[in-house]
């Protein structure tokens, strides 16, 4: 029962991190580590991401 609850909470947390895009940073850090590269700061990383959003607007439907 408790393990199920823990699993569910983990699942929700994973989902929210993915959907909100927060997971992108973790993925980037992991990739940087894998490639022995000095990662940029989170601030710079998020600026890059919002720069992209700036030029690629996604329509929201009715």
């Amino acid at each position, binding site marked *: 029962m408790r393990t199920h609850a823990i699993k569910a909470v983990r699942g929700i947390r994973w*989902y*929210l*991190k*993915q*959907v*909100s*895009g*927060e997971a*992108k*940073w973790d993925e*980037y850090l992991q990739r940087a580590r*894998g*490639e*022995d590269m000095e990662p940029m700061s*989170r*601030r710079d*990383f*998020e*600026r890059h*991401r*919002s720069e*992209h*959003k*700036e*030029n*690629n*607007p*996604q*329509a*929201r*439907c*009715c």
Partner: protein
Amino acid sequence: MSTVTSPDQTGRKMTPKSMVGWGAVAIVGAVCWTVLALARGENVSALWILFAALSSYAIAYRFYSRFIAYRVLGVDNTRATPAERLENGVDFDVTDRRVLFGHHFAAIAGAGPLVGPVLAAQMGYLPGTIWIIVGVIFAGAVQDMVVLFFSMRRDGKSLGQMVREEIGTVGGIAALIAVFSIMIIILAVLALVVVNALAASPWGVFSIGLTIPIALFMGYYLRYLRPGRVMEVTAIGVVLLVLAILGGNYVQQMGLANALTLSPNKLVLALVVYGFLASILPVWMLLAPRDYLSTFMKVGVIVLLAVGLVIARPALQSQAVTSFALNGNGPVFAGKLFPFVFITIACGALSGFHALIASGTTPKMINKESHVRMIGYGGMLTESFVAISALIAASVINQGIYFAINSPVGSTGGQPGAASEFIRTLGFTISPADLAAAAKSVHEITLISRTGGAPTLAFGISLVFTKAFGGGLAAFWYHFAIMFEALFILTAVDAGTRVGRFMLQDTIGNVWHRYADISWKPASWSASAVVVALWGYMLYVGVNDPIGGIYQLFPLFGISNQLLAAIALTLCVTLLFKHGKARYVWVPGIALAWDLIITMTATWQKVFSDDVKIGFFQQRSVFQAALDKGALIKPAKTLDQMQQVITNVTVDGLLAALFALLTLTVVASAIPVWIKAARDGALPTTEVPRQPSHLVAPAELFATAQEKQAVREYEDSQRKLATAGRSR
């Protein structure tokens, strides 16, 4: 690298257990539909509609969408998707199927499925219910899924690009103009819904107004204080949002009531200024944080509404089919059940706008080809469920109140006494005192002629929630619902203006190259101004229309959205022909045929009908003839208003005719391609050739044990590869 792939789904046979299970679902569905078809009178529970919908969706998803995926389209999970081939972590990005479903749903679902069904409820609950469910299964969800698939096979090309390359240049140009002008109408009508919800509602203006500083704060927080912490800032934003709604109750005490009681024209001005600023400001400042809030509210309220309906089990107050459906003289919008119920309910049953999203970012993020089924078809079924919930919320309201809220002010006079008398002529009874009490119960100055669907839905939601979760909060729930609708309409207006600006810059950029430079301020500012001016003008026209903005413009909104669907479905038919799948052309073909029948009939009637309630040009000639004699026709009260009616109906009629003509151009230029492809068996297309996929992922929503094992093995092997790479 291993090339393990998930097991193919086509070969699977149904087990006896699943046969029994699906048999049970079918029986539940059949019982619900029978009850809906036969039950009449006072105590039909709304849950019959809810469960008829859910069981129909389940069966359609399990059988029809699977047939489309594996037989018609031939999804192939051993073939690499653009996300896998072109992965760059930005546009092209392999995304978990459940996460992408969330993104896609957030992009397609907005106020449309909430507004259309509410207005269509004037014809009773049954026509809307049938169209929403049957329409989504055979048309809307098919369109979304097939467009998503074909765009995915072409590296995520847009609808306009595909029409140009697969059908022809003329069709492509027609499609481009259609997409742009339809978007303008959609933005104007959505904005009109917001204006009608906020006019003379200081509480509403207070809480919606506060969303701007809240979003600015969130943007600042994400940019400077704690970059990237989206969940944290959304949680803060939602708390502030709820406080803003609660605070609205005290506008009177704060002495703000008068200052915030805005006229419709002031709101138009506010929206136009807001729309312009939002489209030129950096997205991190306003648009992105607003989007987080609006997505959260969207999903939250939809879930809450479904739960609330099941707990409250409200009885339907509206008739199954009203006389307006047959006579076409309803006060909310003119015209008979055929074709106008199909036009009024676009989003939720068939929405052409979705084709823009299904050929936008989503196809570039798909992990496995089979995922188009749960994302395209499943996403649209979910939107349809939202539409059904909205239809129910509108149908559980006392019908006298429903018609008082939704009849134009030209009919009700805007006063309880006159409104009560007008409602009596429609065949319903509601006393002036009851009308006043209903407005008071949700702390509004009045509910009479608050057209546009949002106040009706909010009133319905507040009834359901009050019954489900306990009393005393009716006013809070009402404003909560208004906030939620206004929030995502404003998000759609922001994002739509921005998308329109890019489209315009791109188009003009073909002739004058510098104009396409999105960082060149004179271009971006002027393009934004043009887009805002266009929808702002239509919004102004709607707000000041003596006949009633929603009454006149909503049919135009529905027609244009469905015409866009006709363009998308024409593309789907063309591509099936070109891929040599003529025997499956009927799948998008029946949707296209039906869509053309309803849109062309509706356009014909709106343009040429000699019924003065329906035909724009008939209205023009009748009002012009009267004006020439210096006479007035109700509801116009002055000669200026007469002139206004004449101008508006001319614009409306020309627009309707233009949209229909553009669509017919696309269809007409596609037919020779169909014939040639059918004769030759197939034609070359721009599909990207097959390359093998190396990714392993479950094919469907629920992973089988086998698939989970395969994914685990694949992930282990990837990890080993990574460590090996590092030690090298």
